[in-house]
């Protein structure tokens, strides 16, 4: 196994080249190599969902994904949602509905909600329950998080952000 590997990542529509040890996870690369500390690590075992990000548009626990698997991939983290200091409508909905307390689960929860709404723009309450089941929150009791997601779904706003899908050129491993 080589000591390090070279990767190209497209994170929040911005390209990065990194050289990392092969065992480094995507969460570690985002936080330590790119300084994107909005991605939180609550367990490192894929159980709490705090590290949720979108990898080529699919929700993953970034603590369980090796960075080496992500060469050429598009990653959306919490830092990619707000643009020009303006909250993304999902972030806005979380704030407005009181879905944030200590805030540690919040970035992952928002990404999970974003992933859910990207696939299903009009979820039922049950869809939201199942969609967020992998994300633990200990402060809010989930009600206000559910409210935020349902509130947003009802608004019919376009949620897409730039760069959360496979980029046109390059593409995964390309």
């Amino acid at each position, binding site marked *: 196994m080589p000591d390090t590997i070279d990767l190209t990542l497209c994170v929040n529509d911005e390209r990065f080249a990194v050289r990392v040890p092969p065992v480094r996870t995507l969460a570690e690369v985002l*936080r330590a190599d790119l300084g*994107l*500390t*909005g*991605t*939180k*690590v*609550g*367990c*490192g*075992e894929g*159980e*709490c969902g*705090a590290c949720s990000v979108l990898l080529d548009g699919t929700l993953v626990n970034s603590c369980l994904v090796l960075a080496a698997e992500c060469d050429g991939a598009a990653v959306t*983290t*919490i*830092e990619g*949602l*707000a643009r020009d200091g303006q*909250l993304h409508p999902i*972030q806005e909905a*979380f*704030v*407005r*509905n*009181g879905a*944030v*307390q*200590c*805030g*540690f*689960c*919040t*970035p992952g929860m*928002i990404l999970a909600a974003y992933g859910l709404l990207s696939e299903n723009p009009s979820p039922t309450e049950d869809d*939201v*329950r*199942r969609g*967020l*089941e*992998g*994300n*633990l*929150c*200990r*402060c*809010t*009791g*989930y*009600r*206000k*998080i*559910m409210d935020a997601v349902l509130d947003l779904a009802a608004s019919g706003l376009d949620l897409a952000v730039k760069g959360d899908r496979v980029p046109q050129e390059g593409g995964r491993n390309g």
Partner: protein
Amino acid sequence: MVDLIGKRVPKLDAPEKAMGASRYVQDIELPRMVHGKILYAGRPHARIVSIDTAKARALQGVRAVITGADLPATPFGFGKDNFALKADRVTCCRDEVAAVAADSPEIAEEACGLIEVEYEDLPAVFTAEDALADDAPVIHEQWPNNVRVDYNYSHGALADGEAESDVVVEGTFELQRVTHGCIGPCGIIAEFDSTGRLTVHSLTQVPFLYRNDLAKIVGMPAESIRIKQTAICGGFGSKLDIYPYDPICVFLARASGRPVRLLFDREEEFFASPFRQPATIKMRSGVKKDGTLTFRDVDLLLDNGGRTSWGATTPWIMIRSFSSLYRVPHVKVFGRVVYTNNPYAGAFRGYGNPQATLAIESQIDEMAEALGVDPLELRLKNSLESGETTGQGMKITSCGQAECLENAAKLSGWEEKRAALPAAAEGESRVKRGIGMASLFHVGGGAKIYRSDGCGTILKIDDFGRVTLISGSSEIGQGSETVLALIAAKELGLPLESIHVINNDTDLTPWDVGVHASRTTFIAGNSALRAARTAREKILTAAAKLFDRPADEMELADGNVVMAPTGEVLGSIPKVIRSLHFSGKHEMVVTSDYYEPPSKSEDAEFKGNISPTYSFATQVAEVSVDLDTGVVRLERLTSSFDVGKVINQLAIEGQVEGGVLQGMGYALSEDMKFAEGKLLNPNFTDYKMPTTTDLPELINDFVETGDPDGPYGAKGIGEAPLIPVAAAIANAVYHATGVRFRELPLTPEKVFAKLREAQALREAQTLPTAAPGQGEAK
């Protein structure tokens, strides 16, 4: 101007948190920072024969290795029986024996693995009952019978209470250990500056007490230590004490000459953090035929673990509910907190109250059934009232107990469901439904366990009308920052956006006792209110001079000084402040306030008015029980809380909903499982916290009794929502099944087994179809 008090106001720090921009301890990097790691004993009771750190020290990238022998032997914690690193003996698996600072967390971990510790294992004991046996191993020599603390409380005369009773019920309740489950694990950064001054980036929820404790342990004057709280990734009481990792990190920083960051991983967060105090509660309760409660006789046995943190003091809070949850003329509580070789408990939201409330409220229901009255009626008959002093000397200044009972019953459809559901339960369905209630009594404005239970505020308004409100209180996610800003905005007639709260740096903030005992809204809120009122008076006095109008006819609104009767705008608040700066006596608008609540420390008999106000609430749980699988689901939970006055509707709902889900986890699924003192389930797969799929329907009601001393009448809510949940669920499960559970959590295995046992018992006795109560298995 819109009055925001009581409205739905988003937390001020929510946008930053929603953008992932808040900095938690894991997100802070300092130049030359190295990484700390702790080596734990991993065995429950042993003598340390020798520690060889040579191999660890030789590892490249290791900057410091420390053991107990390198440190001053300064005991700390409530029982003064804990040490940063244990030099001679370990008394539980989580005991810390050595620590490393290295260039990376990986090197630090590898170095810990190279430390060679030779132990001589000693006989160990794992239950409080076993630890009381004559031949039990002695865990700390100063306490030869292993009893670390005992509690003796009484009011009235128990014998009289027993003599008056027509019905007496008794039972033993077993409460398990549960973890706080903060989504962000613990961590700390310690750095010394060039002058030797120490800055600690900490998650503590009690910064000033923590600083004092840390100073003693690391042998520095407290004034040489600055505590800066990072964004706090979950508190719930877990950060109420100082724990060994705090001074260990400081010692590593001292030994390595570098800033050191020490972060827990999830497994450590589970096994090396305090948990909710487990308890065995043996209790008898009595009542007269007319429904008047007569007595409670309680025997508490608490497993202290191998060291003593705040868990050992939870009987203080339990006693308050035993004595004063409803009016009971004769109460006796005897409690013992006993050393074992298990890990130890700390503070957890509600302190000992969820434990005590389960026992009290289960027996209220049992007595109601024996008397043939509705449990609601029995509770109403014995409710406290405003103006009375309880048997323990607590003065009830505002009391919504009866109203909470009535509201929760009405909103949940209590009367109809209580009558209908047992009938439905006799059908063929494998799913039975039930409804049960429980209430609570809790401090609502702190608890005077120190000489002061106060909080300080410094408030500054600059020449552009920006307010800097510096409060001793801490924001741990609960929303106190926003509550304080709302209060200041209202008093000063300024928009909420003008208020900037600083609450996380002991070099700036005035004294406070910390986030506990549901005290922040009441105490920090009053302090902020009074500081803001002083500033307001100062502005109005200056405005009177500037605009030549009577001060008592002006008010502050929308950033201006206006005439109260007409609303005529005289000028902006910044203009008045500039007039103070530039003319006359050349003054600033900087005010300060130290608010000390009108509470008293309790006396040697545990009596006294420990809090300036008390909280009341009732919760009604509706459950379904699957008889084939034993699965209990909380379908709906209705809460009615006497909060005095709602300051922020959005935040208070969040406090209730979060507390309810924690209480539900306590009741139904959460259980730290130990074998020989070792935690078996240190992860979120094997330790089941509620998720979105478990979320019940939640109905929240707030009763505004208007406390005479609270800010705008408010009292505390922080801990209350968790407290009665388990008791309400247990009562609902009884209503559904006729089987009383006195042991938590109500897991499918446990419920299934006990339902079967009860059924077998019924069949053996060839009783007719069981009505609730007859099927009870004891």
